[in-house]
């Protein structure tokens, strides 16, 4: 495994722990005021003003549970700003946790139901000690084809 990819920025969405490689993460934004976009694809929760740059926010709640996330529902709600294919996106998450070094973690395919629903966005299931972590494939989060849950 590529050592640069062994570190994951982890966050929780709907009670489960997910992670994206830190190499993709440019920053974490606590809160963030969203401008909703009529007619937008369902995975888009709105636009964010990131210090003068307008970036699209992706609703991970919707992608992972099929339910709309409540943006700003808690004080801990945050946006993880990631870069994929030269464009920056904000991933709306419930709470941001630590960066986990997954070196020596056990790799397994993600549980069946999750895998079937989102074959593209889910990477693998990592077991690092007590922590269970599902990795997400950043490139697949920002594509327009919708998977209807």
């Amino acid at each position, binding site marked *: 495994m590529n050592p640069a990819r062994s570190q994951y920025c982890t966050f929780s969405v709907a009670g489960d722990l997910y992670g994206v490689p830190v190499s993709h993460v440019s920053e974490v934004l606590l809160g963030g*005021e969203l*401008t*909703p*976009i*009529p*007619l*937008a*694809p369902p*995975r*888009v929760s709105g*636009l*964010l*003003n990131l210090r*003068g*740059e*307008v*970036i*699209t926010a*992706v609703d991970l709640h919707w992608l992972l549970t099929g339910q709309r996330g409540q943006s700003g529902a808690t004080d801990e709600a945050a946006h993880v700003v990631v870069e994929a*294919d030269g*464009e920056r*996106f904000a991933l709306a998450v419930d709470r941001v946790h630590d960066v986990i070094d997954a070196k020596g973690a056990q790799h397994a395919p993600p549980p069946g139901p999750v895998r079937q629903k989102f074959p593209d966005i889910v990477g693998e299931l990592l077991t690092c000690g007590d922590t269970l972590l599902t990795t997400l494939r950043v490139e697949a989060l*920002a594509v*327009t084809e919708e998977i209807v849950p």
Partner: protein
Amino acid sequence: MSEDFDDEIVAEFVTESGELLDQLDATLVALEQNGGDDELVAAAFRTLHTIKGNAGFLGFEPVQRLAHAGENLLSRIRDRVLQLDEPRATALLATLDQLRAMLDEVESSGAVQGSSDTELVRTLAELTSGATLPGGSVQPNLSGASAGVIVDRSGSESAAMVDREASADAAAVDGQALPVAGTPDKPAPPSGATTRESAEAFPSAPGARRGSPQPPGRHPPRSAGGGTTALRVDVGLLDELMGQVGELVLTRNEILERTKHVSDRGLTNTVQRLDRVATRLQEGVMRTRMQPVANMWAKFPRIVRDLGHTCGKKVRITFAGEETGLDKALIEALRDPMTHLLRNAVDHGIERPDARVAAGKSATGTIHLSARQQSGRVIIEFSDDGGGIDLDRVRQRAVDKGLLTSAAADALDRQASLELLFSPGFSTAESVSQVSGRGVGMDVVKTNIERVGGKLEVETELGAGSTFRISVPLTVAIVPSLIARVDRHQFVVPQAALDEIVALSATDERCIELSGKSVLRLRGEVVASVDMRTVLELEGDPPRERHALVLQGNGSRYALVVDAIEDTAEIVIKPLGRLLEQIPIYAGSTLLPNGGVALILDPLVVAQRHDLLSTVAEKATKADDTVAACRDAFATLRFPGAHRLAVPLSSLHRVEEFHSPKIERIGDRPVIQYRDHIMPLVDFDGHRLVPAAYHDGEEAPDRISVAVLCDQDRQIGALVEDVEDVAEVERRHAGRFDVLGGSVTRVWSAQELAVELAPYHLDEAERSAA
């Protein structure tokens, strides 16, 4: 005029050749260092060949001869008969230096003297024939020769310049100086062919210089310090800078907004300084993107010449205002539409020589292009002295094509008939020629011009020719916009397409359903409309009071109904990310002065997708209706003392409010300054206009409403209490009263109004005295 064009071509040649030479420098140095790469040698050969060809074409024989000598040597190297050894590389680089000196001479004097290059040509010939020269002896001789060439003709100052050049070029030989041209992150394209393309993709340096506020003369091409006065800069970098400056301006606006009520003097001063600097910076960066329209026109004489030959017509083209500057993006956007208009003018506009002579005109037709800047816009006019547009034929054509019935066609007025030209699929050419008349075109031309916020108008006179008038904003980088709200969403609508804003009440009689479609009745005109809540698929109840944005596009007027108008703003367009760019009705996003994000609507796309644009047939009948209705559309002005006056809507320019107005006098007539003009102020006494009753020393009220009336481009301000209504009036007699809105109202036709306004016009002397 044609002389100027020769200059233009020569300037292009100098610029392009300069670029080619810069690339050759690098190529030769690379070749010398890395040995024979066949591709590179072939590319170098082609490049020199291009310069030779162009020089030959323009008659710069010494350049041609020298380039030829260099090319000969390179061809032997390419064919592997000779090696590119150090003396040969040195001689070739010296050739480049000498060519540069010649180009400088061409640039400053328009010509190059002959016979000065023989020594270098001889050297090259010797090297080509295989004779070896001692490596050290070549260079000094050569640089001596190149400097000496200039001293002979242009005096010591030029010689000093060339010496500096020579030393700069010596650095290039060492491989330390790199070409400035081209994008910094991409290597210069090696082949001659790509080079030509890249030369076109960048603003030509002489052109860019001409676009600067103080166009420097043709002399001197170099600054006194020895450096170049013009730099070629990657356009992408300029775009990036422009974007950043746009951001800065928006940030400035935000700071101005937030500090409006702050009483900290130090802060206020700082903010004012920031304001000034940001404004100047914005103007400066905008100027760097300005190019003279001549850049767009440079190829036109050639097109006219070739097309004229193809069509068997004699055509000359003349130009005026070529130095008028226009944003680079607009130049690019207008290039194709302009070329299309030019082709049309030659193909359809100008008659054959025999027909022209028979009509008593000169056998040679003239196409005249002019550009000028006028109140923040650039007006480009395109006139020909050809046969003009036969409107009967246009209408017949439209009927033949099934675009409308012959009854509808007969009802069309002049303007509406001309509009037919811009209908999709319309072409008046009797036969489809290879030049134009493929039935694609004028509608696309118009759409492309409108897309950049421009307008296209036509005037024509049968037998005398046609004029196409294009008007575009100076820049597209910062877009004046309107911020509208629908539900809780803010949207930005560019003002360019906006015709008017109509306030609607909950039960507005003007909103009606017509065969399942919403329409808005405006002064007798029927305007297709759509509720933005429907467009955006929003639920919930709209507010009682709403607004309709009446917009213009593709020759139609249409209305978008929004919940509220929030503000106006100047915005910078930001691209939407890839998740949202698929939504066609959004043209981008922007940041608002309050830091929020708003989407930019593309109103034309909304109109297209919701079927708001009129078909040709609808336009025909509608135009007819509109003419009938407009003839009788009057605006009722209410004056102090309950006097009411109805004037034709077309004469009412707008209603302005002046806060703490400064009313001045010319003679005994009160005037006010309005948009850099002096506007006389009048009142209405129930029968006629009288000078507004302000006496010396009398204080004007805090706020006055002025109806700006127009007559022959002059503006007269009428002090009104209110503009009550816009209504249709049945006119029976001239100069009589009518009952409008339940009150007796004096109604004036345009002619009557003109008679009444005439005494209030300021004459030239008064205007200049003021």
